[in-house]
């Protein structure tokens, strides 16, 4: 079984990794769309902008929230929770934030599923195709790191204060 100290340090390592991967995941394109011979690499935000430009603000908003804001919020709030581990400051706020992260966390998978659905149907050669780009791997990395970190750092650890000499 995992000890508490191991849980905390693993969660910290995962969140740090997630924060580092967040940068390339937004800079490197996640997919390349080819439409009628015209090739266009798209980053996460590029995809949002494209939706916005085609007069679909609601869908653009959903994708923006799910694939840009949620991962950022997740990394930042997990980092905050883990920084304050072992102290008794803001314990109930940390508890609430942990619950929210747990609930909304999975919505950032929307971009990965989008890529999967688009890759499945968009294989018509020069007429229209969608291929994955390395940015998607970084994006997956952020997702997996945050999901595991939130799972490994149990809510009960929030309530542990300094008495614990190991941390």
């Amino acid at each position, binding site marked *: *079984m995992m000890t508490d100290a191991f849980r905390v340090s693993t969660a910290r390592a995962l969140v740090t990794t997630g924060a580092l991967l967040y940068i390339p995941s937004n800079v490197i394109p996640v997919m390349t*769309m080819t*439409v009628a011979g015209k090739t266009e690499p798209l980053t996460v935000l590029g*995809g949002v902008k*494209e*939706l916005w430009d*085609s007069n*679909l603000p609601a*869908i653009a908003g*959903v*994708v923006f929230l*799910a694939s840009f804001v949620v991962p950022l919020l997740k990394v930042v709030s997990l980092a905050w929770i883990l920084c304050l581990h072992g102290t008794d400051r803001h314990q*109930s706020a940390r*508890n609430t934030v942990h619950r929210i992260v*747990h609930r909304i*966390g*999975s*919505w950032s*998978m*929307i*971009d*990965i*599923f*989008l*890529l*999967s*659905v*688009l*890759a*499945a*149907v*968009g*294989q*018509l050669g020069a*007429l*229209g195709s969608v*291929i*994955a780009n390395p940015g*998607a*791997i970084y994006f*997956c990395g952020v*997702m*997996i790191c945050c*999901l595991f970190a939130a*799972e490994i750092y*149990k*809510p*009960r650890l*929030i*309530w542990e204060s300094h008495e614990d000499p190991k941390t």
Partner: protein
Amino acid sequence: MKPRSPLGNEWIACPHCEAPCRRQQLPAGCELRCSRCGSTVIEPAGKKTFQPALALSVAGLFALFLASISPVLTFDVAGREQAGYIFTGVKELLHQGYWMIAILVFVASMLAPALYLVSIAYVSTACAFRLRLPHLFLFFHLAEWAEPWNLIPVYSIATVVSVVKLRMIGGVTWNDGARWVLAVAFLTLFAQQLFDRRLVEHRLGAMGLLGESGRGE
């Protein structure tokens, strides 16, 4: 629900933050809340049964099966048509060399939902009919493990967004698969709400299946 030992001196752990709470005789319609994190420790007695979770998870399994074998979308550009199944995306990503993403999509949209629904159905069957089925605990923990990875509701939204994106390029038609994906999404959300972990633990305890080892993390 009749308690196993006299009330008053028994301590139970809060299911969310594991703070010790004293079990109390609750007035009708009242619930016991954790004084530390505020989550419900004991729900109002009566009311809840295992049948709804069982029905929803079995229905969800059927819908998931149908969602996996029917095409979700049909895409056509200049007269050429192509149908996409859930698995086509996984295969295509694997084919392009992105095996990590392919595995993630496979786990989150097929494997975890299936495991989650199977384990809820299995545990609920055992509890509802008081059957001592083998490996109940394994399935109980499997449900807990698979829950955060069951991302079918997110998948259904992603399908909607991809339809919008593909409309910019060519013609897209919804297929039966999309309806089944939506059905699985709703059924799992409801099953999640109705599958009461504490009630199951209580029933397993009453059946004498909850050993010391059962109180895992």
